């Protein structure tokens, strides 16, 4: 069993504190993605799990064993680095077999393990090449091969796809997910890209400024963000947020007099005069006749389109509500001219309310 547990883990660099007491439990075989903007402490956390950074406080255990003071080589982990960190003076074969030859495994065993890894990742034809003779995607695969050869308890990925071009990134993303399905190990994966987080993770850990903001499945984070940071970080395009004030208990008055009813999830939890952010995703604001037919409370808004971004199956429409630019989605799109006025349906059941002072979600 190789669950990973972090309890109250702290990292300090001199006076600066980079990670503020993180608690996290990762189950055996789980694919967990640490995501957040740069400088949020996600890489530092990963490097502490790997043993590449000292732990200033708290405790990390892997498979029930506290590893705080163990060097990386005794943690039975493997890591894929952003710049691959392949050994440039060794061939692909030597790169793959390096960890086993360090462990003084018999040659036959090394060979069969290397062959197996090469097969999984389709590296058979590249075995005698040096890293300099490989393309970015091939290097990435060798780095992954080097990680799986040893059958580690835990895989650590540190932004492994950020050096690849967009097309290759999508392709490698699928390969990583397939790899996880094949080998079934616990994976901890760091990225700043929320799309990678959404597509790969069993569970996402969203971090900011050395704190964990929210932990949950991709859909939990998408549908029930705990605050405006999560709401705007997860999902593309980011959630639309409009400033407003609660009038009575049932109505939110947006900046220039437009008012919308308080969404059912927040009813009874807001007070008269409370300043709030009213939030909804582009998917929940659609022009009439180009929306999904769904039951539920709706509000109609007449808005003029300022900009369009056709994406093929849908078109993103930019418009303004109460002086704030918002994005809406148009299904089965038809050409829309800037300035055109359309009637939009706002799905009130899917809207969110956040307290303006704390930016926390108000939700029952």
């Amino acid at each position, binding site marked *: 069993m190789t669950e990973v547990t972090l309890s109250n883990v702290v990292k300090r660099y001199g006076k600066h504190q980079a990670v503020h007491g993180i608690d996290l439990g990762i189950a055996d075989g789980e694919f967990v993605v640490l995501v957040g903007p740069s400088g949020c402490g996600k890489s530092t956390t990963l490097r502490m799990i790997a043993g590449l950074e000292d732990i200033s406080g708290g405790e990390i255990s892997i498979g029930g064993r506290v590893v705080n003071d163990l060097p990386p*080589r005794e943690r039975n982990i493997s890591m894929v680095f952003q710049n*691959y960190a392949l*050994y440039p003076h060794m061939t692909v074969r030597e790169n793959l077999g*390096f960890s086993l030859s360090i*462990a003084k495994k018999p040659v036959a065993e090394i060979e069969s393990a290397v062959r197996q890894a090469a097969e999984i990742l389709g590296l058979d034809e590249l075995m005698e090449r040096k*890293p300099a003779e490989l393309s970015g995607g091939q290097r990435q695969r060798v780095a992954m091969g080097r990680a799986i050869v040893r059958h580690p308890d835990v895989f650590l990925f540190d932004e492994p796809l950020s050096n690849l071009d967009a097309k290759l990134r999508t392709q490698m993303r699928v390969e990583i997910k397939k790899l996880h399905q094949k080998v079934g190990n616990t994976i901890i994966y760091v990225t700043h890209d929320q799309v990678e987080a959404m597509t790969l993770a069993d569970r996402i850990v969203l971090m900011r400024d050395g704190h964990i903001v929210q932990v949950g499945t991709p859909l939990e984070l998408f549908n029930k963000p705990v605050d405006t940071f999560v709401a705007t970080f997860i999902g593309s395009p980011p959630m639309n947020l409009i400033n407003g004030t609660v009038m009575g208990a049932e109505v939110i008055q947006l900046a220039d007099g437009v008012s919308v009813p308080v969404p059912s999830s927040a009813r009874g939890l807001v007070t008269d005069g409370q300043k709030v952010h009213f939030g909804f995703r582009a998917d929940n604001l659609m022009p009439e006749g180009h929306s999904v037919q769904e039951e539920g409370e709706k509000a109609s808004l007449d808005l003029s389109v300022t900009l369009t971004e056709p994406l093929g199956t849908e078109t993103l429409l930019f418009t303004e509500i109460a002086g704030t630019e918002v994005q809406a989605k148009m299904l089965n799109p038809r050409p829309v001219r800037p300035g055109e006025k359309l009637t939009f349906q706002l799905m009130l059941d899917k809207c969110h309310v956040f307290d303006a002072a704390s930016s926390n979600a108000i939700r029952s």
Partner: protein
Amino acid sequence: MDRNQSHRNRKRMLKALHFAALFMTMSIICIPGLWIVLNSFRPTVEIMAKPPVWTPSFTLEHYRAMFGGAGEGGVPVFSYFRNSIIVSVVSTLIAILIGMSGGYAFARYRFKGKAGYFVGLMLFRAVPGVALSLPLFIVFARVGIIDTHLGLILAYVAMNVPFTIWLTDGFFRQIPKELHEAAEIDGCNRWQAFWRVEFPVARSGVASAAIFAFLTSWNEFALASQLTRSVGSKTMPVGLLDFTAEFTINWGGMCALAVLMIVPALILTFLVQKHLIAGLTFGGVKG
């Protein structure tokens, strides 16, 4: 058409100028060396002739004399050569070991006063070696290592270490630190990670540092001339002085010994040339 033609002419002319300038520069660099080699094979009369003799005759007289007995103008070439080899090789090895460790430490670790140490080392190099020869002479004489290989080796190690540190620091700095981290995760301790991964990657850099250190020791004259006296410790550059008498200089003999000095250095440089060039254009290495 016309414009293209004139453009092409201009380009051709620039190229010609370029080659001419290159030729001039290379001549200035190479002619003294050529002069030494040629004169080592010419009779003394021809070397001293005024006006110069343009069609040289060939003789091995200087080499014969040099390897001959003391009365025939011979010098203990083999002793000098042996001394030079011992002093240069040993001092280079020690300087590389110390310098590489230092360079690695500067490149990889953070410690108090790092920048200060580094500048200090470089300042140390700014002191001309000769200026230290008198204090060194006195100290060495007291300790009793004057006129020994050990004394000279110590002096050369001190001379070469700062430069080696500076050079290897640069090479290790260019190796991404993820490389040794990956090695550590793959099961190495720090020591193994260095020898199995970082050292092989920086090998060409270390090789170029070594050749610089070796050539410095091999060619050094000023300190060696002060710190060595006898056949047992004199190196080849100092041995050249054997050809100067009170009123005369045996140019032919001096050139012959100089050729013997140049040859091993040339051979060594050719042998590690590949590494040297790779070392000086190190940026190509990427994980």
